[in-house]
């Protein structure tokens, strides 16, 4: 712990009260776009010029009308399905590859590691044109697989998992071999449970990244039924033009799930971000 922790334990200094107040006001400013978004989503069209955060007569009418035609439900489903499948794939493959690179000696190990790591240097934007071409030739345009395939494995996740598997003692693995587990079982039953903090960090990052992804889904989808939530919201907002209470409701629907997940898992998420940021 830093020395600051100790400082605050003893006497309370006036400086600390000022610091706290300024930080608190700053925090309120940071959160205000979210507060206004939710507030306006609960207002009727004639109330939106009223700046009060607590609506005079809160109503769920906007949510009902936005959700009524089923489009948002569909986009919500698409985004959830895609984010979950891509996350599962990353947790499986990235950790399997990370484990293999960390715990086996074989010819080509270093080469494969460097090759995978080098893909970190290649920006998505450079690959979208070839991916688009590939998708159109293979009939992947406008499909779930088309949206998902570029992200099924990532170098970032592989690197993160490799770093953590290196901390798993070899004795554990040897002991499991002696017990007659095969290599896959050793990874799955012995090594993987030892790196759950890293695995949850990877899961959080992958889910969040795919849930909020905009650029590639915008390119690869053309029919509205296959839009993800961000792409759907964008098209919905353009269509609503100046009906801000409707746009805010759509934005709130796109934002709520990640915020709710955060409220439940705050400690793990913050720790995961720290882990990934420092090791990654």
């Amino acid at each position: 712990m830093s020395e600051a922790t100790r400082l605050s334990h003893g006497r309370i200094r006036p400086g600390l009260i000022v610091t706290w107040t300024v930080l608190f006001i700053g925090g309120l400013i940071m959160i205000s776009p979210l507060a206004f978004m939710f507030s306006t989503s609960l207002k009727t069209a004639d109330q939106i010029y009223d700046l009060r955060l607590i609506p005079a007569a809160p109503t769920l009418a906007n949510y009902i009308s936005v959700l009524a035609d089923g489009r948002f439900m569909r986009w919500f489903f698409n985004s959830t399905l895609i984010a979950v499948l891509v996350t599962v794939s990353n947790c499986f493959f990235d950790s399997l590859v990370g484990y293999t690179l960390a715990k086996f000696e074989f010819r080509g190990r270093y080469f494969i590691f460097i090759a995978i790591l080098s893909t970190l240097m290649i920006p998505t934007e450079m690959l979208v044109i070839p991916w688009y071409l590939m998708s159109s030739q293979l009939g992947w345009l406008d499909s779930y697989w088309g949206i998902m395939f570029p992200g099924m494995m990532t170098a970032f996740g592989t690197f993160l998992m490799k770093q953590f598997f290196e901390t798993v003692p070899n004795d554990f693995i040897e002991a499991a071999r002696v017990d007659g587990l095969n290599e896959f079982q050793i990874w799955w039953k012995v090594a993987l449970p030892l790196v759950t903090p890293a695995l949850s960090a990877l899961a959080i990052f992958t889910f969040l990244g795919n849930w909020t992804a905009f650029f590639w889904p915008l390119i690869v989808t053309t029919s509205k039924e296959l839009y993800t939530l961000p792409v759907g919201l964008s098209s919905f907002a353009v269509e609503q033009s100046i009906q801000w209470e409707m746009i805010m409701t759509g934005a709130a629907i796109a934002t709520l799930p990640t915020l709710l997940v955060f409220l439940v898992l705050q400690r793990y998420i913050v720790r995961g971000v720290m882990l990934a940021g420092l090791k990654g």
Partner: protein
Amino acid sequence: MAAIEQQGAASGRPGSGGGLSMRTKRLLWVWSFLAVPILFYTIIRFYPTFQAFYLSLTSWDLVRPPKLVWFANYIKLFKDPQFWKVFKNTFTYLIIGTPISLVLAFTIAFFLDRVRFMHNFIRALYFLPFLTTAAAMAWVWRWFYQPPPIGVINDVFGMLGIPQQPFIRSTDQALFSIMVTAIWAGLGFQIIIFMAGLRAIPGTFYEAARIDGLGEWAILRKITLPLLKPTTVFLVVFSSIGFLRIFDQVYNMTTNDPGGPLGSTKPLVLMIYQTAFNSYAMGYAAAQTVVLFTILLIVSLLQLWILREKK
């Protein structure tokens, strides 16, 4: 590691048990674990990378097959005034946005680290924007920036007696208005990383400094900042790459004239998007992506170089 290798080598000799040796068996496991990933990285990462370089040397409209034109796309690009404008916009996001967001994030992290009362709650206030969808929040900010009586910011300005501002409707202010949105969205992440970096500094360093009679400011300059350098360099690069690739916010805040008004907010990625998927000039767009790649590569190499220098 060595133990595994030795054991593998030892049991790799033609054994008594018959069938496959331990070593061969283990190698079979290794390559079966790696088979699908190798295929994936080859087809989805490496092949497209080379293809992007190749396509950048062709003229291609998706209808007729690509025609090799060598460096014509690059020559066209460097002569294109729109490209230079976009180039300038992109670097404006980077050069102004990165220092502002890092100074803000460090200041907040530095003080937040000392606050215990409601620490988690205040941290959450700063961190939550990081978890939002950029496309969704772009619309919230777009609404904030509207003229009165719709736009919240102009309403507040009105109450405080500050003149109304055009924000995203003005060629002078639009880029900075969008930049604020991007800084806001990324700040929480940077604060968390800075706080992790601050906590990694051993308390004994501070004690020693205090015994030596250093003041707060001297401790910050001589201990905190130097020891925080790896964190700072990481965040500078992370943030720079983010600004160089900015797209979601710009696209959603300027849908009626993407990159407008008058191209004043258009970043490189939006130009790439329009060249490829509005004009279908795939070869020309590929050349632009190669330029983006080169810029990002230089930024990443600079990071490695800076970190190596002082070891």
